[in-house]
């Protein structure tokens, strides 16, 4: 029970308090690039959740049971990027071949994920910080769901921005970044959300 609670708390904390985009700065490129439409941001977000969770599940054992016993922990980055890239290609291949409907909604976002720093960032961060498997999984789930949440919310705001009267120089990306700053202020308010909880 205790484990379950701390697992859920860890998910919530890496989702809200330490949000990927707004406080850890992972995945800014798709955050700014694929957020003009709610539908496309949803597709990107779901694809990222899928790949991050899978990558976490593979990378943690790879590091702890293969690279560390072999005495080559410094190969981690190479191994992770290979895992992530092949994962993306395999998932893409599967979808392309067997599920045209899924391909229609997710297919174009999959190749983008290899260069999304959130995936490598989570895998690398998990082992750099020496988290255990459960915490890594919680971090992976929390981070990716946090990404999904933030990119969808952001795209909703951007849709409205398109039709609002913004100073000419701020049109497009600059105002989007200012909006992101305001969102970051809002998320700063969530800090210390769980600090009073004692397990």
């Amino acid at each position: 029970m205790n484990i379950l609670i701390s697992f859920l708390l860890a998910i919530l904390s890496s989702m809200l308090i330490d949000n990927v985009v707004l406080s850890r700065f992972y995945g800014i490129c798709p955050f700014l690039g694929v957020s003009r439409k709610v539908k496309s941001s949803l597709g990107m977000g779901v694809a990222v959740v899928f790949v991050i969770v899978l990558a976490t599940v593979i990378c943690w054992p790879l590091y702890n049971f293969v690279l560390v016993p072999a005495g080559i922990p410094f190969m981690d980055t190479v191994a992770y990027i290979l895992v992530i890239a092949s994962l993306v290609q395999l998932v893409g291949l599967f979808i392309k071949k067997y599920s045209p409907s899924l391909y229609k909604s997710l297919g174009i976002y999959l190749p983008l994920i290899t260069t999304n720093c959130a995936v490598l960032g989570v895998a690398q961060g998990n082992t750099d910080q020496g988290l255990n498997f459960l915490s890594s999984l919680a971090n992976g789930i929390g981070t990716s769901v946090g990404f999904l949440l933030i990119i969808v919310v952001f795209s909703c705001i951007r849709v409205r921005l398109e039709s609002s009267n913004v100073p000419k120089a701020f049109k497009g990306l600059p105002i989007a970044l200012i909006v992101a700053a305001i969102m970051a202020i809002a998320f700063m308010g969530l800090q210390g959300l769980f600090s009073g909880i004692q397990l």
Partner: protein
Amino acid sequence: MANNAKKYIITAVTLGVIAAASAGLIGLTNLFTAKQIALNEQKRIKAGIVEIFADDAEILEEKAVSDKELKYTNYEYTLNKGVAFRTTGSNMYGKISMLVGYGKGIIPGGSETSYKFAGIYLITNEQTYASTLVENYVTPLNNDDINYDDVKCGATYGATLIKEMIEETNKIMEGRKAE
């Protein structure tokens, strides 16, 4: 068909050579840097010991601790001023690696007979609330403003981890007498 096969072989060989060269380069760099990285680690420990004790603190002996009962403690250092332990632990907010120092305490009568908790030094602090933890827990603890089991500080998880580490080293030190 033969042409095709040749092309595949050339591709495979090229890639193999690239991969092998990459691995070789990384291995070579590791040979050069591993020593330096270990040395940096050593320097950091020395800095921590100076921070906890005094400028003239010195490491006399280093010993790896390999007791299965101990969850966090990795190394024990015998110093001219006392004893220090290197502990590493992590919770879901990240890893903490720190030194716990015990100074020789002078009890009334003039002879050095027991050890007293002297302070901690964080070597790596990768907690999410790293700065809160240092401000509200580690600094007051080192200044004797709070007790180590007073973990309510805004970074409770990190503080609890540190508390558990200190409790473990306290247990090791229990009953030890300085000569």
